[in-house]
């Protein structure tokens, strides 16, 4: 049985590999996004020393690492699930002897592994050539970051699966998916680190799962969070991973009972 899930990872990885050319422009796009943010922050810092606990050089690294982390954890599971629902092929997948959601997560993982190796690592190399990015020397920061990055992927995929499964209830969830993408980019700290938001807003954001996707791993990697602090922020990620399983299972059960096929 386990073998089947491994095959989901493997097949998705190979499929992505077949279309790897598309990802070279992706690397350029992400470098450009880093560029916009880099120049904007440079203009903001001017002669200033530190903003929201970030020095100018930490901010450059944070921006680069956050975008490259996104290059890894990003996937379109929400779109895949909602199109499975809309064209009715989900009915077939439900009666197959595997768990649909788990299979999707595995496919997402296959995609993530591809993105890690052929998108994130070369992208990071390019970003380091173009911008003054400083990587940490502390092995603990590296280890912490890599583990947390994996949990960023898990939490982001959980949110994607939840958004996708909502297509059972709202029929056409195109707008919902776009909304989710914007909310995740803004509130995860990708565009603005959470400590720079006004106090009341960052207080709210600290109670939401999005910070666990970008802000917390980025903070570890730039060295803002060190030592015991790493365990604390990792704990936050673990808690959100566990909490998000609840709506996921609930939606999955409700969806199986509600299934009605619109087309096909």
């Amino acid at each position, binding site marked *: 049985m386990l073998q089947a899930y491994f095959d989901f990872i493997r097949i998705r990885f190979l499929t992505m590999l077949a279309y790897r050319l598309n990802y070279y422009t992706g690397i350029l796009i992400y470098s450009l996004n880093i560029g916009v943010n880099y120049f*904007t922050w440079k203009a903001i810092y001017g002669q200033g020393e530190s903003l929201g606990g970030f020095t100018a050089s930490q901010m450059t690294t944070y921006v680069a690492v956050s975008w490259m982390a996104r290059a890894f954890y990003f996937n379109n599971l929400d779109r895949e699930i909602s199109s499975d629902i809309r064209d009715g092929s989900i009915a077939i997948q439900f009666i197959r002897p595997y768990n649909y959601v788990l299979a999707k997560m595995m496919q997402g993982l296959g995609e993530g592994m591809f993105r890690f190796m052929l998108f994130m690592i070369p992208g990071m190399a390019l970003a380091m050539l173009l911008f003054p990015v400083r990587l940490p020397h502390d092995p603990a920061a590296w280890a912490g970051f890599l583990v947390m990055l994996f949990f960023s992927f898990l939490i982001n995929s959980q949110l994607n699966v939840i958004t996708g499964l909502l297509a059972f209830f709202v029929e056409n969830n195109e707008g919902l998916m776009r909304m989710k993408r914007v909310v995740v980019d803004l509130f995860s700290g990708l565009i603005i680190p959470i400590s720079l938001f006004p106090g009341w807003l960052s207080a709210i954001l600290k109670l939401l799962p999005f910070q666990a996707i970008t802000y917390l791993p980025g903070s570890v990697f730039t060295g803002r969070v060190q030592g015991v602090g790493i365990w604390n922020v990792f704990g936050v990620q673990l808690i959100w991973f566990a909490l998000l399983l609840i709506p996921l299972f609930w939606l999955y059960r409700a969806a199986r009972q509600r299934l009605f096929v619109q087309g096909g």
Partner: protein
Amino acid sequence: MYHLGLLSEYLKNYMKTRLTYRADFWVEVISDLLFQVTNLVFIFVIFMHTNSLAGWSQNEVVFVYGFFMVPWGVFACFVNMWNFSERYIVKGEMDRILTRPAHNLFQIFLENVDPPSLIGSLIGLLIMAVSGLNLGLPFEWWTIPALILLTISATGIYMGIYTTLTALSFFSDAPTGIIPLMYNIQSYGRYPVTMYNRAIQVLLTWILPFAFVGVYPAGLFLQREEMTRMALLTPVMGAIAVSIGLFVWSRGVRRYKGAGS
């Protein structure tokens, strides 16, 4: 007249298809606006930590963003060619277009009209009005005509660039992914260009003239002396971009060979 008639027919058709998923229509409008709000939030948060961005105040940067939204909304409404290659070339829909009497590019524009985008333009005007009032900008007799002219010119720049890039899919078989790239570069144009390094400034002014869809024309209303000359160049750049776009497009269409079944 014939083309105007077609436009209204297509709009009617559009309304019919959209009204089937009524709730979704509003979710889409809101999600579009939310995206714009993200950018505004970014500006507001930045100015909580600094007083000026390369010599521009918060109200000025917001004003530029407001202007940026206006031509973008018009462009997204009437000249949307996202997914052209998959839909028209890979699936062979271009055959259908070419057998009809109206101009082929015009038909493609019509089939993809997206009126909700115009709501973004309205919000852009509102943002310009509010930040303009905060700045105490004078309202001259030429403000409205200039706004219309610059909006049309900026839309022309978008249209020229995206038509050219879309036409490339006639020449190459593989999807290039160059259009998503452009969507990212254009966001450079909505901030004061002076904050970038020289190479990017030249790129945004003369090669991919995205500075002309945001910061330069807005500079005219903001009475930025250093940008007045560039603002007045906007219609010229628009005309050049549209000509290049139409030229490359017509060359491309000639190369088209049906692909679908």
